[in-house]
C-alpha cells in the first residue's frame, strides 16, 4: 500500500534512536557485569571490556545459592501464572457461557480489583498472611495472587470473540459445559491464553514488593530480592557483582522472550492483550 518506500528514512532514524535508548542500558548492564572494578570506573562507556572477566559471575555463583533462588522464583512465578490462568479462564467462561442475574455488576466488581493499588491492600493482606502463618513461605506470596481481574477481563474478551455458532454447535451435540470449555473454547483461545500467561509470568518473575514483605528468610528469596542484597545501603555497591546478579535475574524472562519473540509478538498483535 505504500508506494514510495525510499522516502521513510527519517522515520527509521527516529525509530533507531528509540531502539538505542531502549537497549543501551541493557547493553551497558551486560558489559558492566563482565568488567573488573577498575574497568568499571576507567572505561565506563566502553561497551566491550578490554578483558572480559567472569569473576563477577563466579563470585555470585559461589556466594549465592543461586539455583535455590531460581527454583524459588520459578516455583512462585509459575504457580501464580498457572493459578491466574486457570481462575481467569473459569471465570471468563462463566461470564460468557451463562446467563445469571447481576452478571455485569459482578463482572465489574471483579474487574475493578485491578485498579486497587497494592499499597492499599498491602497492610491487611500482610496481617492476614502472617495470621495464617504463611510469612516466609512461597504460599504467602502466591495466595493473594491466585486470581487477577485483568485476566478475567481478557479471557472474557477473547471468549466473546469466538463465533457463537461454534459453541452452539457444541450444545447441539449435547456436550457438557466442561467439554465445550476444554475441547472447543480452549484450543481456540490458546494464543490469548499463552500471551496472557507470558505477561503474568514476566510480571510475577519480576515481582519485588510483595515478596519483599513476605519473604525474610534468605533461603526463601526470589531473584529480585537477592539482587537488592548487593546494593544494601551500608555495604557500598559492588557494581560488577550487582550487574551480574541483575543479568542473571533479567536473563530468564529475556531468554523466554527472545526465543519465542515472533510468537509473542504475533499473539500480542492478534489476540491483543488489550481492551
Amino acid at each position, binding site marked *: 500500500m505504500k508506494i514510495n518506500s525510499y522516502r521513510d528514512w527519517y522515520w527509521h532514524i527516529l525509530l533507531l534512536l528509540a531502539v538505542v535508548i531502549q537497549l543501551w542500558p541493557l547493553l551497558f548492564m551486560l558489559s558492566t557485569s563482565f568488567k573488573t572494578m577498575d574497568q568499571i570506573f576507567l572505561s565506563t562507556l566502553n561497551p566491550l571490556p578490554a578483558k572480559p572477566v567472569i569473576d563477577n559471575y563466579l563470585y555470585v555463583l559461589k556466594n549465592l545459592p543461586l539455583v535455590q533462588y531460581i527454583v524459588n522464583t520459578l516455583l512462585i512465578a509459575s504457580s501464580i501464572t498457572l493459578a491466574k490462568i486457570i481462575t481467569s479462564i473459569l471465570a471468563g467462561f462463566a461470564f460468557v457461557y451463562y446467563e445469571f442475574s447481576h452478571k455485569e455488576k459482578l463482572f465489574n466488581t471483579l474487574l475493578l480489583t485491578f485498579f486497587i493499588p497494592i499499597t492499599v491492600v498491602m497492610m491487611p493482606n500482610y496481617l492476614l498472611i502472617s495470621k495464617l502463618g504463611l510469612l516466609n513461605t512461597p504460599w504467602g506470596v502466591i495466595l493473594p495472587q491466585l486470581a487477577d481481574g485483568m485476566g478475567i477481563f481478557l479471557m472474557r474478551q477473547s471468549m466473546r470473540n469466538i463465533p457463537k455458532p461454534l459453541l452452539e454447535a457444541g450444545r447441539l451435540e449435547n456436550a457438557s459445559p466442561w467439554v465445550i470449555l476444554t475441547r472447543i473454547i480452549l484450543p481456540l483461545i490458546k494464543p490469548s491464553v499463552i500471551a496472557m500467561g507470558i505477561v503474568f509470568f514476566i510480571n510475577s518473575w519480576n515481582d519485588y514488593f510483595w515478596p519483599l514483605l513476605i519473604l525474610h528468610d534468605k533461603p526463601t528469596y526470589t531473584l529480585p530480592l537477592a539482587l*537488592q542484597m548487593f546494593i544494601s545501603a551500608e555495604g557500598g555497591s559492588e557494581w560488577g557483582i550487582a550487574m551480574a546478579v541483575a543479568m542473571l535475574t533479567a536473563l530468564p524472562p529475556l531468554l523466554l522472550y527472545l526465543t519465542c519473540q515472533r510468537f509473542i509478538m504475533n499473539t500480542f498483535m492478534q489476540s491483543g492483550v488489550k481492551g
Partner: protein
Amino acid sequence: MNRFTWQSALFLAPAAITLLLFAYWPLLQDVWLSFHSWNMVSPTMKFVGLQNYLQLLSSDELIKILLNTVLYILVLVCVNFIFPYLLSFIIAHRLNRFSFFYRSALFIPSTVSLAVASILFLWILNPLAGPLNIILSAIGLESPRWFKESGLVIIVIGLIIGWKVFGYNLILLVAAMVDVPKELIEAARLENVSNWQLFRRIIVPMTSSTALYVFVITVVFGLQYVLVPVNMLTQGGPDQGSSNLVYIVYQYGFVFFQTGKASAFAILTMLIYALFLIVKTKVLDKKVHYEN
C-alpha cells in the same frame, strides 16, 4: 444462554473468592484500621475516631504528595502513552520494512524487572562517575543530582518506569493501529491527506478505545510500579521529593509503623482512584469510538 446458576457459581468461585478475600476484604479492614492507632504488634489498638484523617488532611505533606503524584503521572502519560502512540502510528502505517524488528526490539525492556531497572539506572545516573555524566560532561554539561533534587527526582523515577513500560504499551497500540481497516486509510490517502491529518482525523478516533485502555493502565499500573524504585533508590526522599500517594501508605505502614495513618492514606488513595474511574467512565468513555 444457559441458566444453571449453581454451575456458573462453580466456575466463578476460585476467582471470586480470591479477589473478595484479598482485594475487597482488605479494603474494609483499611477502613477499620484507619480509625485506630496501632503499631502492628502491640496487642492493644486505640480507637481514635477521625483523628488520623484530620492529621493527614492538615499536614502540609499531603499537598506535596499529591503534586508529586500528579507530576509523576504526567511524565508517565508522556513517556508511556503519548510517545508510544505516535511511534506506533509510524510503525504500523508509515514503514514498509523492519517494523517487526522495531516492535520486538523496543519491547525488550518490558521483560526486565523494576528492581533490575532501578539498580541499573542508579548506576547509569550517578552524577559523578556514571556513564550518563561522562557523556554529559563530554558535551560540556554538568550532570544534575538526579535523585537529590526535589521535583527532578520524581521525573527521573517516572522516566525509569517509562523506560520499562514503554515497549509493552507500544505493542498494545501497534496492535490497535494495525486493526484499523486498511480501506479507511486508503480512502484517506486518495483524499491526499497529510500524515498528521491522517493520524489526527482517522487513526486517533479509530484507536481511541485501545488508547483509553492504555491510558488507564499507564496511570493505574504506573502507580503500582512506583513503589519499587522509590523504595530501592530514594525511600521517598529528598524531603518527600519522591514520595507519592502510593508510597506514603507503605512508609507510614511499614517504616513508621503507624497503621492507622497508613490506612487513612490508603482510603484517601482509593477515593482518588474512584474519582479517576468515575471521570474515566463518565467523561472519557463517552468520547471514545467503540467498534461494537
